[in-house]
């Protein structure tokens, strides 16, 4: 029964009760004040007996009062209802362009100077601009496209470095300068860094990726260059994967082993079309490049984890010519994050090791170790050391060590100063600066930023 009808009913009852009470009083009054002409009955109350009739009248009055109070309360409720219209539930929030891809832009400005006067020309320029587009395709799949636009000047300078390290240093200057000039004249190089479809709604904890991806070999290679804790990738990684890391097109299937503790134990296999450029050395691949990876991880506290993985990739030429490579790697990450901000400092220790065997050619061994600490909310300090023996038969290691200090105004803007010591046919000291800005849609995961 609604409050309105209940109020009406109670009002009617109160009215009736009041009428009845008044009628009762009216009927009783003559018996008290005007004795009936009729012969009084034996049960007619006397004045002494009146108190015995009082309780029924009191109960009736109390009932009336109770009903009146309820009526008052119901009236209050009714007023409340009339004063406060029902607020309809809000419509689902939706932005006007909700079906468009989320767009994020990255600007990476890098400056470097080599105080020993070798290899690096003083510069400060935009190293790259990246456009990240991602959206759900349908309930079963999502798409990611990352377009990179690289500065031809910096690219050319790196190219010139290669010439300087070439066989004939006397002629290198002229040739290199010519190529640099030629490349500078070119438009910015646009590169599709990622273009892939992930099938995210497969059963049995399977995930299928198709397309061009950052290859899941180790941990650091999954991160784009502007996301890593130093200005560049470690030297051992670039020597084996390429300057920009290793991106490849293929088919990748990941399976997460079900277990009662929900521990993340993942297996991944993939078939790719190209392989890492330094190992392929420009050759085409009529046969596919294979990838396998296993990774286990465990959390201990919020955001703190230890993770370890092993990876393998291999390729063999389909022809009789003995060409191909095997690349094996191991990686680990220890990350500690403060439980209470301001009391502790986050810390990470990360390392990767690689062994590369080129069929009928040299074997290489390399790796890096990095550690970082967050002394203040928006400041991160990182150390990294890396080494590479390019030919195990003629071991002459190249190595490097670096330090980077990064200041985040927010997770969207980072300023970094770095120093690197590089031992590669001599020692050089490089100082670098980097400013990285992220704008547009929110990044999926702030890298190393512990807020």
């Amino acid at each position, binding site marked *: 029964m609604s409050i309105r009808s209940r109020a009406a009913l109670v009002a009617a009852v109160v009215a009736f009760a009041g009428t009845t009470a008044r009628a009762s009083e009216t009927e009783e009054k003559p018996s008290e004040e005007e004795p009936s002409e009729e012969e009084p009955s034996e049960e007619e109350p006397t004045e002494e007996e009146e108190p015995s009739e009082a309780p029924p009248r009191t109960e009736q009055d109390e009932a009336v009062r109770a009903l009146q109070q309820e009526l008052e309360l119901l009236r209050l409720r009714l007023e409340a209802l009339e004063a406060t219209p029902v607020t309809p539930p809000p419509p689902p929030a939706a932005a006007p362009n909700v079906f468009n891809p989320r767009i994020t832009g990255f600007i990476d400005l890098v400056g470097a100077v080599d105080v020993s006067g070798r290899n690096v020309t003083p510069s400060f320029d935009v190293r790259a601009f990246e456009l990240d587009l991602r959206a759900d395709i349908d309930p079963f799949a999502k798409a990611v496209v990352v377009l990179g636009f690289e500065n031809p000047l910096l690219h050319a300078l790196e190219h010139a470095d290669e010439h300087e390290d070439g066989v004939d240093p006397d002629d290198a200057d002229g040739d290199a300068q010519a190529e640099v000039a030629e490349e500078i004249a070119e438009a910015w190089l646009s590169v599709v860094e990622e273009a892939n479809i992930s099938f995210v709604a*497969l059963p049995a904890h399977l995930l299928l990726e198709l397309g061009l991806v950052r290859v899941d070999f180790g941990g650091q290679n999954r991160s784009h260059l502007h996301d890593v804790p130093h200005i560049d990738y470690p030297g051992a990684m670039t020597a084996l994967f390429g300057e920009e890391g290793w991106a490849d097109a293929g088919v990748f299937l990941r399976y997460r082993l079900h277990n009662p503790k929900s521990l993340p134990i993942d297996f991944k296999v993939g078939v790719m079309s190209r392989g890492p450029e330094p190992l392929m050395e420009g050759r085409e691949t009529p046969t596919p490049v294979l990838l396998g990876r296993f990774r286990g991880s465990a959390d201990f506290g919020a955001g703190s984890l230890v993770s370890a993985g092993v990876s393998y990739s291999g390729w063999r030429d389909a022809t009789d010519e003995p060409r191909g490579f095997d690349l094996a790697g191991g990686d680990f990450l220890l990350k500690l994050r403060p439980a209470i901000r301001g009391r502790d400092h986050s810390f990470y220790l990360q390392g990767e090791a690689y062994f590369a065997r080129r069929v009928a050619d040299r074997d290489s061994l390399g790796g890096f170790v990095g550690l970082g600490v967050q002394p203040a909310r928006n400041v991160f300090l990182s150390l990294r050391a890396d080494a590479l023996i390019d030919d195990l038969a003629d071991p002459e290691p190249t190595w490097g060590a670096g330090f980077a200090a990064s200041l985040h105004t927010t997770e969207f803007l980072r300023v970094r100063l770095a120093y690197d010591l590089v031992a590669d046919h001599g020692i050089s000291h490089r100082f670098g600066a980097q400013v990285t800005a992220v704008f547009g849609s929110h990044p999926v995961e702030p890298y190393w930023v512990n807020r």
Partner: protein
Amino acid sequence: MKAALIVLLTLLPALVHAAEVRVVTTTTDLAWAAREVGGDRVSVRSLCSPTEDPHYVTPTPSLVAAVGDADLFVEIGLGLEIWTGRLLDGAGNPDVRPGGPGYVRASDGIATKERPSTLSRAGGDLHPEGNPHVWLDPVLMKIVATNVAEGLARVDPPHADAYRQRAKALGDRIDAALYGEELVALLGSALLDRLARGGTLDAYLDKELGGAPLRARLGGWLARLAPLRGRSVVYHHQSWVYFADRFGLSIAAYVESKPGVQPSAGHVARVVEIAGTAKVPVVVVSNYYDARLARSIAEDVGSRLAVVPLMTGGSEGAGDWFALMDSLVRAHTGDAP
């Protein structure tokens, strides 16, 4: 044979656990609601620790695995958990993706506050759909519990009625804690909620019943915070609009110049000036923030500093959501526990 044994051993844990509904929530408040509503039918895990900023949880592989094994995934939504997309994409569990039966957006049906009129990162960490800190309003927490119950009902239909009844009972307990038992018995939960949501409760309590104002029958948290009604408070981050509005507090200023942005010295000076003028009784900061700035402002103004948990389990005295709200009320009034 060996392969079959391995498969059996792999599947066995899943079969053993099939009896209960595995609920994974983003925050501890949602985990508490899921336990209250689900009772012994559910096992619940919160991905975010109670002293962690729920905006910035690292989506570790373990969290991905937990979501992968969940029957029900509950998040606040409204852009609070910017990290869950990655978890859901990697989990390989289509049932708990948005639109699936095992997905619950706990803020559904809530009229959010502080929807920005202009969306720009120049405004700091804005939430386009409105402020997501809805669990700090008891009235909205009842909606959250109802949404959780409906999610449980979808993934465990045989016990749907039980979940709904438990959500209703939880709502009754929240009402008693918020309004006091006498007022709830007098006016009923539905009416009080309607008044509260419509923002007319305070004026309505001035009406008289039996010669005395209804306000005299008010109890619970509203009565305890009544002395502060209309007073201004300084908060560190923009987490408190629902709490402040529910209890009639005015937000004098935020320590952060913009959400998620460290304040400049000039902004801090302005906050001190505003707080001094408004004679704020308390400066409130969540315990996962660095409290130094808030402390210095409180000292400059001569106010109390309250370092409070923002989520259930965020401190020793906030073991469940009722205790959390109790501790927040105490932090504002200055009462001893």
